[in-house]
């Protein structure tokens, strides 16, 4: 014990210096506690106070993150956390997700009308936001596992928050069981990695050296076990089976959140492990082949299964599996280049996916219709909403004149660069599959405008009202049109 005494003052100094870079996380923790207290004492008198407070907190966090852009990589808390430009970009993405999610909860009918109130949901969101922030910054396996669990536990609670009918409780049961199994498998993989290397620091020299000296079988086994946990968050091919059920059953705002926030955080963790694999010196061809296989299978499965879906949320769930596969393509970057195409695609993906779920939810609120074949005639009844929906669907397909085209174009050009430099045929197959699956996605996305505009409605006229959600989705659709003209609005930060 005595030999540690000289290190105490230096480690305290390190911790105090690190706290300065962690302002946004401190704000989130304070906000989390504040929202709980406010909801406890003022929820009767001022029912929307916790909403306003959480909006303010997320906006503060957003501005704090903007000041951290273009920062040199900072190693904080003795290597527990590394704050660099990429993680700040991810943190800004999470702020965008949280902002839209908060507005979505605020104007969602079923959540607002429920007797439980939404105060706790805002508090859970702030905790999950904190978890996602830590996920993208962590460079230690303990920190990584803690933050992943923080996100998972919060998401389980969100899915089962109201459990008003059997479908919602079923979705939450499936999510919690599959999720716990995935994280238990991941924990076992982490314990093996720790045993092989004697270190928990992902970029530490002893960790890398330990993995370099390892025979192939234990290395592949332990990394596969860890990858199970990450792939669950990504909803990538072998661990996608929970997605349709959970996305269909969960309340729409929560579905919109799950398909964006935790998925993006999962990509940040995946990038950490890819950097680690490159540092170990595994042949990049082997890694690329595995990644390309996952991408191909996710795209094929997601897009083909989406064709047969009639429930609109289930259709978007399968299409989000396809988008995961597509985002894998943006991971094929040459060493030294950043993940610009990936981040740009994610920005657009957040906007269009959130908008799609907002519009679905608004249609459900106004007409109680969930299935695509019931949408007939809606083009006349909910005209503004359906115009926005068409723009969003064009963007999800990846056609001009929407930003979805720009995003897909960047990803394709990144993957083509990777093919030109490596000449690997798997990458070429992946690019071809991506192009074909874009074509296939036309079929299921355009079923919605087909029904809404070209088929006559059989039932009585619906009294359409313009609600805040319509304005919000119109704004998001406008952003999609704006960003194809001015992609530099996002690109300047990358």
């Amino acid at each position, binding site marked *: 014990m005595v030999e540690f005494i000289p290190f105490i003052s230096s480690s305290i100094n390190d911790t105090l210096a690190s706290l300065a870079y962690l302002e946004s996380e401190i704000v989130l923790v304070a906000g989390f506690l504040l929202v709980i207290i406010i909801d406890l004492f003022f929820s009767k008198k001022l029912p929307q106070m916790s909403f306003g407070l959480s909006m303010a907190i997320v906006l503060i966090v957003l501005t704090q993150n903007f000041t951290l852009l273009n920062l040199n990589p900072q190693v904080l808390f003795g290597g527990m956390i590394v704050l660099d430009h990429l993680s700040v970009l991810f943190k800004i993405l999470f702020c965008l997700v949280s902002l839209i999610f908060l507005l979505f909860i605020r104007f969602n009918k079923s959540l607002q009308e429920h007797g439980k109130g939404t105060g706790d949901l805002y508090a859970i969101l702030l905790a999950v936001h904190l978890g996602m922030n830590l996920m993208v910054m962590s460079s230690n396996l*303990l920190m990584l596992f803690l933050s992943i*669990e923080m996100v998972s536990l919060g998401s389980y609670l969100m899915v089962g928050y109201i459990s008003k009918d059997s*479908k919602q409780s079923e979705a939450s049961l499936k999510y919690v069981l599959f999720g716990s199994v995935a994280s238990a498998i991941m*924990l*076992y993989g982490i*314990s093996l990695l720790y045993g092989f290397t004697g270190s*928990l620091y992902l970029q530490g020299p002893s960790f890398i050296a330990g993995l370099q000296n390892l025979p192939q079988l234990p290395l592949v086994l332990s990394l596969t076990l860890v990858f199970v946990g990450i792939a669950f968050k990504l909803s990538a091919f072998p661990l996608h089976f929970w997605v349709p059920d959970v996305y*269909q059953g969960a309340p729409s705002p929560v579905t919109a959140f799950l398909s964006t926030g935790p998925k993006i955080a999962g990509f940040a963790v995946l990038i950490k492990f890819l950097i680690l694999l490159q540092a170990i010196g595994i042949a990049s061809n082997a890694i690329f082949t595995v990644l390309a296989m996952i991408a191909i299978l996710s795209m094929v499965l997601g897009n083909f299964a989406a064709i047969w879906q009639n429930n609109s949320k289930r259709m978007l769930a399968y299409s989000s599996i396809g988008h995961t596969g597509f985002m894998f393509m943006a991971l094929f970057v040459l060493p030294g280049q950043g993940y610009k195409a990936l981040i740009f695609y994610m920005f657009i993906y957040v906007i269009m996916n959130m908008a799609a779920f907002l519009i679905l939810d608004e249609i459900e609120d106004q007409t109680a219709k969930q299935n695509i074949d019931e949408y007939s005639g809606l083009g006349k009844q909910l005209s503004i909403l359906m115009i926005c929906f068409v723009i969003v669907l064009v963007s999800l397909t990846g056609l001009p004149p929407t930003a979805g085209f720009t995003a897909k174009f960047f990803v394709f050009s990144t993957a083509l660069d990777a093919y030109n430099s490596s000449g690997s045929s798997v990458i070429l197959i992946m690019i071809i599959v991506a192009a074909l699956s874009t074509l296939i996605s036309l079929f299921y996305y355009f079923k919605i405008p087909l029904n809404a505009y070209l088929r006559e409605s059989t039932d009585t006229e619906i009294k359409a009202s313009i609600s805040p959600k319509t304005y919000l989705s119109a704004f998001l659709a406008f952003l999609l049109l704006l960003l194809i003209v001015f992609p530099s609005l996002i690109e300047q930060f990358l």
Partner: protein
Amino acid sequence: MIPLSHFLIIGACLFSIGLYAVLTKKNAIQVLIGIEFMINAAILNFVAFGKYDKINGGGQMFALFAIVLAAAGVAVALAIILNVYKHFKTIDPSKIDNLRN
């Protein structure tokens, strides 16, 4: 002294038993017990490996955090299972399949 390999074998057995329970049991609570087996296998590994990591004690630390997280996870899962029972009057995961196209 008990050699390290004994701990690892017990850990691997626990993990396999847990995975078997997760895959075969027809009761959500028994599935949860299986998950708990798997987590505890990993915790046992951590503590066993941690004995050789005298400077940092990272393994023991990780084990403590993992125990707390496992407890939190079980609390959430039990609450959700209770909700499911209210709606379905059963907690057999294979019978709970209302969600489909």
